[in-house]
């Protein structure tokens, strides 16, 4: 059944690439780092699109600045949060020994390790998370949030940096921001009087980033939240990240294949959306290169 939709999405991705070898968020839009990195990772799982994958990696390399940062696109020098995704793509998809590999990865790794979300003084009247913990932000000089921090952890784990102090602090930050009833919001736990709502996508990406950490109650309730939420969700971003997060903890329900197929069929009715197409392919892949789990193929 899976085979029915995967080739169709692969075809869409292959057709959506622009002349420069990159993907935009929509067909016909300018190349952007995030969809290009995700497309490379997704196509790499198919094993038969090496030319496109190599083209994507090269495009990301051309986008990279001297300091190692990869901005969102050639049109905007800032922000540079997609550096983590580009690093992940280079680590997972570049053939070993490729000439440019070490230099681009080294610079990106250095940038990621130096990028720091902004600390704020604790103010328990406003929020109750530990705002002095440092993770990664969407934009320089702003606070750390779940999604960019999780991307950084995924990239740093792929770079065998799981024991780096920045990774340890990032893990602590993500766990600190977990909602009491399970899951993660974009990054706050409470604002003023109210505990915030969990979101499936951020919960999935947080669980993926925590893969390999000791299992504990905050992870258990997050898994419970996703298992309860995902059956009704057919939105590609949330479903894909939700399932990737569950897979990271070996908690993917058997019905996931049906959900993915229903979501893919829905997606295919719409114009190509490389970010979503790639994420669904990654969520449905036999081995997901976003997370390091036993059996994941790595070439580093």
């Amino acid at each position, binding site marked *: 059944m899976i085979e029915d939709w995967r080739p169709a999405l692969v075809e869409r991705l292959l057709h959506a690439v622009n002349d420069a070898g990159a993907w*935009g*968020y*929509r067909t016909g*839009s*300018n190349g*952007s780092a*995030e969809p290009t990195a995700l497309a490379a990772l997704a196509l790499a799982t198919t094993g038969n699109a090496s030319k496109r994958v190599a083209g994507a990696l090269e495009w990301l390399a051309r986008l990279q600045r001297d300091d190692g940062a990869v901005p*969102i*696109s050639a*049109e*905007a020098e*800032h*922000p540079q*949060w997609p550096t983590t995704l580009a690093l992940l793509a280079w680590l997972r998809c570049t053939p070993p020994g490729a000439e440019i590999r070490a230099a681009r990865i080294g610079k990106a790794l250095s940038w990621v390790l130096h990028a720091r979300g*902004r600390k704020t003084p604790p103010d328990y009247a406003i929020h109750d998370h530990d705002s002095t913990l440092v993770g990664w*932000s*969407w*934009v320089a*000089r*702003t*606070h750390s*949030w779940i*999604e*960019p921090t999780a991307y950084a952890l995924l990239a740093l784990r792929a770079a065998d940096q799981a024991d780096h102090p920045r990774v340890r602090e990032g893990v602590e930050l993500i766990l600190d921001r977990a909602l009491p009833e399970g899951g993660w*919001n*974009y990054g706050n736990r409470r*604002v*003023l*009087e*109210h505990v*915030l*709502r969990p*979101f*499936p*996508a951020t919960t999935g990406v947080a669980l993926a980033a925590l893969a390999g950490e000791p299992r504990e109650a905050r992870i258990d309730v997050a898994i419970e939240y996703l298992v309860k939420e995902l059956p009704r*969700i*057919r*939105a*590609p*971003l*949330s479903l894909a990240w939700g399932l990737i997060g569950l897979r990271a903890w070996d908690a993917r329900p058997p019905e996931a294949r049906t959900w993915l197929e229903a979501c893919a069929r829905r997606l295919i009715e719409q114009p190509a959306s490389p*970010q*979503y197409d790639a994420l669904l392919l990654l969520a449905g892949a036999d081995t997901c290169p976003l997370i390091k789990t036993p059996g994941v193929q790595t070439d580093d």
Partner: protein
Amino acid sequence: MTDAHPTPDKTNVGGKFSRRQLLGIGGIFALGWGLAGTAMWWRRHERGRRADVFIGKAAGYDADLVSLVSAGLEELGVTRRQIQGKRVLLKPNLVETALGQAHINTHPALVVAAAEVFRRLDAAEVFVAEGQGHRRDSWLVLDESGMGRALAEAGLKFVDLNHDDVEPVANVGTWTDLEHLYLPKTLRSVDILVSMPKLKTHHWAGVTCAMKNLFGVMPGVVYGWPKNVLHWSGIPNSILDINATVRPTLAIVDGIVGMDGDGPIMGNPKPVGAVIIGTNLTAVDATCVRVMDLNPLGVPYLTQASGRLGPIHERNISQLGESIARLRTRFEVLDLPHLANVRRT
């Protein structure tokens, strides 16, 4: 230059003034008085800015909203000629969704009704776009809000502004220190931008209506989720910069059921039964605040916008349609020091 041999000013001895000096001093006073008076007039009349705002009454979302919006535009003097052949972008508020919490976001029925009105006025294209502030997943937001189904049934396209191509535009407002604003290219390609917010209180800005709703045109890939940069730059100042730079054309506010208390996402449903429409968003927001029985002069972004982006004083706003008094509904505001002035005293 200093005079080498100054002439003693005998007239000042004993505090007496010559006739000539008295005339001079009087002239200065008169000039000062005149300037002060002019400044007061200028301020009182908000630099000569005036605006019309229409208030329509709708008991619920099953009311004839097409007729209501149509009547509002007609009263405001919006003509077919102004709409004909134009590309119209409707920008609802879809900041975040939660099942059973429809009062967070602009109701789909009003968006579809507005689209129908613009279509009847021969707009070349009408579509809906949003760059929601909290939830990155547009598909989920469209699913959970019911907006996706409504748009599909009405044949309306949705554009995700969070993931649009972007271009830097000089910051016209300069209330923040942001030199440029990165705007979605889609936004730059439309002729008419309609802000379609929900009538809500806001725990930082006091209220969120037509002007604050434009945070949602700022692409998340550039500004993050929530739009971090704008929060760090100051919410009121960011609201002003965005509005000064983007220059929206029109506002149609969903005040049929609003939100009070801990808005913009955790507050309570507040039925008002109002749809507020206007071409000047500052005046629309000031009117919205009055409908909420709150104090526009206590909302920092409105006091800053006064005279520069539009009028906020009742004397400079012509109310059309229903009166404010008829629909005024007390909105609760969180008991926080920075919101003290928002409450009407």
